[in-house]
C-alpha cells in the first residue's frame, strides 16, 4: 500500500480503523461500541483472571481434539476418494453438500444426541473442518503428476511407497491449503459450538459478557478470538509457502 508516494506498512489500515473506532466510541453514540482504548484495557484485565484461562484451556482443548480428528480422518478419506473411484463416487456428493452446508444448524441436533458437553464441541469443530480438508486432499491427489507415479513404479516402488513417497508429497500444497481453511473453520466451530451450548469455555464468557452488557470485555474477547484464528491460519500459511517453493516446478 502506498500513500502520497510513500510505502506504508499493511497494519496501518488497522490503525486507521482503530482510531475511527476510538472516535466513534468517545462520541457515546451507542452503548455497544465503547472506545477502543477501553476495550484494550478490559482485555488486559480479563486475560490474567482464572475464569479466562479456564475458558481458554477448555476451548483450546476442544479445538485441538476436533482438528486432530479432522486431519486424521479427512486426509486419508480424501486420498481414498481420489484413488478408489467407487468411494469417490459414493462420498463425493455428500462431501460437496456438507462443505457448503451451514453446519451450525446441526449443532442443536448434536446437543440432543451427544449431550451438552465438550464432546459436542469437539464434534462441531470436526464437522466444520473435515469436509474442506477431504475436498482439497482429493483434488491434490487427483492432480498429482501421473508420470511421477509411473516413475516410482518403474524404479520398484511398493504400493505403500507410492502413497508415502509420491502421492502425499505431490498433494501437500493442496492438502495444506485444505488444512488452513479447515483451521479457520475449526475456530468458527469451537466458538459457535460453545456459544450455542453457552455453558462452556469461551462461549460461556461471550454469553456472560453480553448478558451483563459488559461490552468492553465482550469486544476484548472478540479481538482475542480473531487474533487467535489469524495467527493459527498464518502459521499454516507459512508452512504452505515453504512447500510451494519446493513444488515450484510442478
Amino acid at each position, binding site marked *: 500500500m502506498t500513500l502520497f508516494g510513500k510505502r506504508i506498512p499493511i497494519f496501518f489500515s488497522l490503525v486507521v480503523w482503530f482510531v475511527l473506532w476510538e472516535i466513534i466510541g468517545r462520541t457515546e453514540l451507542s452503548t455497544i461500541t465503547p472506545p477502543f482504548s477501553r476495550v484494550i484495557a478490559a482485555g488486559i484485565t480479563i486475560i490474567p483472571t482464572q475464569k479466562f484461562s479456564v475458558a481458554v484451556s477448555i476451548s483450546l482443548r476442544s479445538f485441538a481434539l476436533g482438528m486432530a480428528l479432522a486431519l486424521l480422518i479427512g486426509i486419508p478419506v480424501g486420498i481414498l476418494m481420489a484413488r478408489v473411484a467407487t468411494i469417490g463416487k459414493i462420498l463425493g456428493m455428500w462431501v460437496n453438500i456438507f462443505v457448503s452446508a451451514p453446519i451450525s444448524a446441526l449443532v442443536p441436533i448434536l446437543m440432543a444426541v451427544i449431550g451438552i458437553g465438550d464432546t459436542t464441541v469437539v464434534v462441531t469443530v470436526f464437522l466444520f473442518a473435515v469436509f474442506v480438508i477431504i475436498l482439497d486432499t482429493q483434488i491434490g491427489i487427483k492432480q498429482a503428476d501421473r508420470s511421477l507415479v509411473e*516413475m516410482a513404479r*518403474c524404479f*520398484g516402488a511398493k504400493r505403500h511407497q507410492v502413497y508415502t*513417497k509420491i502421492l502425499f508429497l505431490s498433494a501437500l500444497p493442496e492438502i495444506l491449503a485444505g488444512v488452513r481453511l479447515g483451521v479457520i473453520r475449526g475456530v468458527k466451530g469451537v466458538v459457535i459450538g460453545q456459544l450455542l451450548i453457552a455453558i462452556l469455555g469461551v462461549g460461556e464468557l461471550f454469553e456472560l459478557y453480553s448478558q451483563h452488557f459488559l461490552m468492553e470485555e465482550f469486544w476484548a474477547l472478540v479481538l482475542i478470538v480473531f487474533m487467535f484464528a489469524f495467527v493459527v491460519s498464518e502459521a499454516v500459511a507459512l508452512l504452505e509457502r515453504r512447500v510451494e517453493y519446493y513444488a515450484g516446478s510442478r
Partner: protein
Amino acid sequence: MSADAIVEVNQVGKIYDGGVEALTNVSVALPHGRLSTLLGPSGCGKTTLLKIIAGLIPPSRGEVWVKGNKVDGPGPERAFVFQDFALLPWANVLRNVAFGLELRGLPKEERHQIARKHIAEVGLKTFESSYPHQLSGGMRQRVGLARALAIDADIILMDEPFSSVDEQTRRKFQEELLDLLRHKKKTVIFVTHSIEEAAYLSDQIVLLSARPGTISKIIQPSIDREGRSPDEIRRDKNYLDAVDEIWQILKHYV
C-alpha cells in the same frame, strides 16, 4: 530368435480401453549390449511398446521376455528415462538420483555415495543440492539418466529423452550418451521420432508402421564409430544411407 537377445518381444498387441488399437503383432529381438531404436510416425505406438517392455503397461496379446523371464511388471534389471524427466520437485538432485536406491531400502550414506558417482558421470557434480526447477531441461534429463544408471540395471529404456531439450544440448548429450553407454556396456532401447538421432545413435533401428503399429523394417546400419568424431560419423556414407533408407520407408506413413 538370436542367441544374444536380452529382450524378446513376441507377437505383442495392445488395444486400449475404448478400442484404440495401438500395436498389433509386434515381434522383435533386441540384442545385448547394443543400442536399439524404436522409430516411427507419431501415434504409431512406439512409446506404448517401450512401456510394455518396461512392464508399466500389460500387453493385450503376446508376451515380452527379458533375460529369459516373462515380464509381468517393472523389474530391477530395467531402468527408465522419461520424456518429461519425472523428477521429484521437492527433492534435490542427490535425492532424485538416489531415489531408485531409496525405494530399495539402501541406507542413506550408501545410496548417496553411489548417487554422487553417477551425478559426476553426467557432469552435474556442482549441482548435487540444486532442485529440479533450478535446472535447465538438459540438466534435468542428465539427472534422469543418472537416476537410471544409479540402480545399475542392464537395460536402459529411454522414451524420447531429448525431445524437451534444445538442439545444441541435444547433440552434445547424444555424444556423451554414446560414450557413456559403450563404456558401461548397457543395453539401451531408445524411442525417438528423429531419423537423424536414430541413425546416429543406433546399432539397430526398429521401424514401426502407422497405427496400429507393427514392425515395418529392421535396419542395422554398419557405422564404424570407433575413434571417430561426431562430425565424421555424420558424414559417413553408411550414416547417410541409413538416414535415406529410413526416410524412404517413413514417408509413406506421413
